[in-house]
């Protein structure tokens, strides 16, 4: 008997401690394994797995506790109050049920995880400390509160860790055995660490008080081993059952997957089949040839072109007919024998011309090819029929054309015909073609090269290029060229040819003598130039007064200055300084006069100089100097706005001067009747995508939409004395410079004539 109030020494049986830990881990593993099943299952099985899991876990915790209690050795006998022991088991099962409930959810947030960890940890702790009250022994238990608290914290923390793992492990297919093991280790640790920490917090003090041993049992070592063994077996069985169930599920899943795969393969195959069938059907529908399939002399298939060729509305009118019905009596025997041969030899028949009878009884000339095929299991013949009418029509048209051309030639139109065999390179000419080239059958070899040799050197490259295109597979030939005849005369020819590729490739063509046309064109162009010159003269005439003024001004200054200097020199003594100043000014003014004359000469010169890089501002300044007198007389104020970034343009200075002069003179005229506002002329230049945009904006009467349409037409004028050429010429000048000239209404009044000019790229002059 130990002395009362002495702390009892404690010790542990290491083997049983290990056993208790093993039970804790196994119980956790079984529980987690079942949690996975719970998630996967539904209805009754779910409930069963759930209950099983909760019981397994509860028994695991409970069993661990009592195995651990047996590992705990006190120098006094210990008994256990069994109703409490049973209650403890209940606590274990309930808290496990709760934990499983959480772990088997689809989703678990942090809040839920922490709550569950708290409850499960608390459950484990509760099981432990309630389990302690089941002890019946001759000692008093004293607890160190800090350590107790620590044990509870451990229980909660490890439970939480285990639950977080369990959360990831729910998906049976995704969980790995390793992770499941880690989770169960954490859970086992939660139980074990809590237990042993809890035990460490307790101190057993010997007591003499009588111990109430009612309804209590002692647990022998063997009993403990029994508990352990049974528990482990139970748990093992649980895991095994779970494993079996899983295997079964997996097999069912495999089977289902295989069925699905097979189904989709079949569907795809089916789609492929119907797609290729569809493609084939469309091809047959779209063929410009008729296709007829007949089996046993009955027509079984006809494509849309075939329906049309036979004059039917739909396939039903044709399908089922005897093939002989559509063959012209003349050909029936021949075709019959061809069909027989097809069946016997299994070989097709080459193209053959024949005639068929359409539903309305009319005959159609055709060309047909046949091949034996199998149609729905029976031997059949597929016939491809081409309408021969089209080809015949083309041939007829060609003949008609030839006749027409001969007529035209006879009527005096100079159309030469030629036929060039591309294989033999032999050209056959009509009489007119010989005349156009100034050659005869004796002097022309018939080779294309020998014809080309007579073409003007300036046009030869173009013609050779056109021929090259035809030889490279082109369908048409067209070119315009001059022929220099042996006698030196020139003949302009407009040639056009079409390549015929049926049969041996050849080109049929015509050559029209357009010499007279060209001559007319040329004289028109010349008279236009003449006209432009005349207009320039006319404008110059109008401006004579201005020009006289422009020359007289500097001349006056010269005369006056020279007179003044003579006077300065004639004084006694001569005033040399004043005389020199006056003479210097006289020279400057004389140069100015010379510049004016130069400008006028340039304006009147007939041949325009080549395009040069020009500054629009300079051109405008030149013209304003010329038009100054007119502007002043009519009280017109001129403002120039030249943007700084305006590039130089490519142009003919004189023509551009004339352009500006025309526009400025027009503006002056347009403002002639303006009395209620100032007469302003604004000349602006700015950068433009096409180069430079120039605007000439007056404050005159403006241009009505009807006028705007015809204002650039030659001989259109609104002026009493106008000849209507100024704007027409301006238009052609701008066009010759690759620009555009147009007119729009100004705001609030007046007209804006604007035009674009191309900027000069690179250095030109």
């Amino acid at each position, binding site marked *: 008997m130990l002395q009362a109030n002495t702390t009892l020494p404690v010790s542990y049986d290491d083997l049983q401690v290990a056993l208790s830990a093993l039970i804790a881990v196994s119980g956790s593993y079984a529980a987690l394994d079942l949690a996975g099943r719970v998630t996967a299952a539904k209805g009754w099985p779910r409930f069963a797995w759930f209950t099983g899991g909760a019981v397994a876990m509860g028994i695991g915790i409970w069993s661990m506790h009592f195995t651990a209690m047996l590992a705990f050795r006190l120098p006094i006998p210990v008994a256990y109050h069994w109703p409490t022991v049973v209650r403890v088991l209940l606590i274990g099962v309930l808290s496990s049920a709760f934990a499983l409930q959480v772990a088997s959810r689809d989703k678990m947030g942090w809040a839920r995880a922490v709550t569950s960890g708290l409850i499960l940890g608390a459950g484990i702790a509760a099981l432990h400390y309630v389990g302690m009250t089941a002890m019946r022994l001759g000692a008093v238990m004293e607890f160190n509160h800090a350590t107790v608290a620590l044990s509870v914290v451990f229980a909660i923390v490890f439970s939480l860790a285990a639950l977080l793992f369990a959360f990831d492990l729910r998906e049976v297919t995704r969980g790995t055995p390793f992770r499941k093991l880690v989770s169960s280790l954490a859970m086992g640790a939660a139980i074990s660490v809590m237990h042993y920490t809890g035990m460490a917090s307790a101190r057993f003090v010997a007591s003499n008080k009588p111990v109430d041993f009612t309804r209590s049992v002692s647990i022998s070592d063997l009993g403990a081993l029994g508990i352990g063994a049974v528990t482990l077996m139970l748990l093992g069985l649980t895991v095994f059952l779970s494993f079996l169930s899983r295997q079964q599920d997996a097999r069912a899943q495999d089977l289902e997957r295989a069925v699905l795969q097979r189904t989709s393969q079949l569907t795809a195959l089916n789609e492929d089949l119907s797609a290729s069938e569809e493609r084939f059907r469309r091809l047959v529908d779209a063929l410009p040839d008729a296709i007829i399939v007949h089996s046993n002399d009955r027509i079984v298939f006809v494509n849309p072109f075939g329906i049309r060729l036979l004059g039917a509305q739909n396939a039903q009118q044709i399908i089922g007919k005897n093939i002989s019905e559509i063959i012209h009596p003349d050909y029936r025997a021949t075709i019959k024998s061809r069909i027989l041969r097809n069946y016997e030899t299994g070989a097709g028949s080459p193209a053959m011309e024949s005639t068929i009878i359409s539903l309305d009884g009319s005959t159609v000339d055709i060309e047909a090819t046949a091949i034996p095929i199998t149609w729905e299991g029976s031997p059949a013949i597929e016939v491809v029929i081409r309408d021969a009418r089209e080809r015949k029509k083309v041939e007829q048209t060609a003949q008609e054309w030839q006749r027409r051309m001969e007529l035209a030639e006879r009527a005096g139109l100079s159309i030469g015909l030629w036929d060039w065999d591309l294989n033999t390179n032999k050209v056959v000419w009509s009489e007119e073609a010989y005349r156009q080239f100034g050659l005869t059958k004796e002097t022309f070899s018939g080779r294309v090269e020998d014809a080309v040799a007579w073409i003007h050197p300036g046009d030869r490259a173009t013609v050779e290029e056109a021929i090259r295109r035809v030889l490279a597979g082109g369908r048409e030939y067209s070119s315009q060229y001059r022929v220099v005849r042996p006698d030196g005369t020139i003949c302009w020819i407009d040639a056009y040819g079409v390549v015929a590729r049926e049969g041996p490739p050849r080109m049929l063509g015509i050559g029209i003598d357009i010499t007279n046309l060209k001559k007319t064109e040329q004289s028109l162009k010349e008279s236009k130039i003449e006209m432009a010159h005349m207009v320039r003269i006319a404008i110059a005439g109008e401006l004579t007064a201005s020009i*006289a003024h422009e020359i*007289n*001004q500097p001349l006056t200054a010269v005369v*006056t200055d020279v007179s003044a*200097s003579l006077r300065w020199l004639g004084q006694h003594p001569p005033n040399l300084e004043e005389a020199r100043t006056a003479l210097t000014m006289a020279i400057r003014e004389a140069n100015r006069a010379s510049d004016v004359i130069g400008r006028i000469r340039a304006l009147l010169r007939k041949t325009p100089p080549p395009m040069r890089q020009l500054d629009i501002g300079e051109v405008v300044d030149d013209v304003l100097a010329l038009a100054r007198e007119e502007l*002043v007389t009519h009280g017109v104020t001129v403002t120039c706005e030249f943007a700084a970034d305006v590039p130089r343009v490519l142009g003919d200075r004189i023509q551009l001067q004339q352009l500006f002069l025309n526009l400025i003179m027009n503006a002056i005229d347009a403002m002639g009747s303006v009395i209620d506002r100032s007469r302003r002329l604004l000349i602006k230049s700015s950068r433009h995508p096409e180069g430079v945009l120039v605007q000439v904006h007056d404050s005159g009467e403006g241009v009505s939409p009807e006028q705007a349409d015809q204002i650039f037409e030659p001989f259109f004028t609104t002026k009493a004395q106008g000849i209507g050429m100024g704007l027409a010429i301006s238009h052609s000048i701008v066009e010759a410079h690759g620009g555009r000239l147009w007119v729009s209404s100004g705001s609030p009044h007046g007209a804006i004539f604007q035009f674009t000019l191309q900027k000069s790229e690179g250095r030109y002059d």
Partner: protein
Amino acid sequence: MTEMLPLVCIVDDDTSVRDALRRLIRSVGLRAEVFGSAQEFLQWSRPDVPTCLILDVRMPGISGLDLQRQLSDADIQLPIIFVTAHGDIPMSVRAMKMGAVEFLTKPFRDQELLDAIQFAVERDRVRHLRQAEVTSLRERFESLTPREREVVEMVASGMLNKQIAARIGITLNTVKVHRSRAMEKMQAQSLADLIKIVEKLQTPARKVS
């Protein structure tokens, strides 16, 4: 006496022409003032000396002919010499009718212009002198009492002393006193002198030529 040196005003929008003209005029020892436009000239305050005006016909804004009319309307009597690079007969006729001294077409001989200037300046000098005389006579006339003026006017119109006395109802002696006092104030030596003075005063706006 610089102030009395005749002045030549040149109005021409062509800088080189008007500068050349200025140089020519200076070479003959005359004063020249140049103006780029009629407005410029009108804004300038003219000194009270014999002056002539050389005017370009065509100018932006107010033309030479317009300026001539404006001056005439304002009763400014300046002799004008027109110069133009582009003259026609109707234009010159119009200018001469309006009292221009000369109408020269550019380019002109220097002597032609200088002669015209000489003539114009001389004419303005006379006008100037006449105007100065009239001004002084008017000042004298202004110094007369109303009664004296009445008497002088009647004397100038050829009335006898007696008639005057009867007309205004004063004694013959009183008329004589008024008359002699007026003669004294008007600096008239004789009756003929007085009559001439009154005539000059009665036609002050009449043109010189």
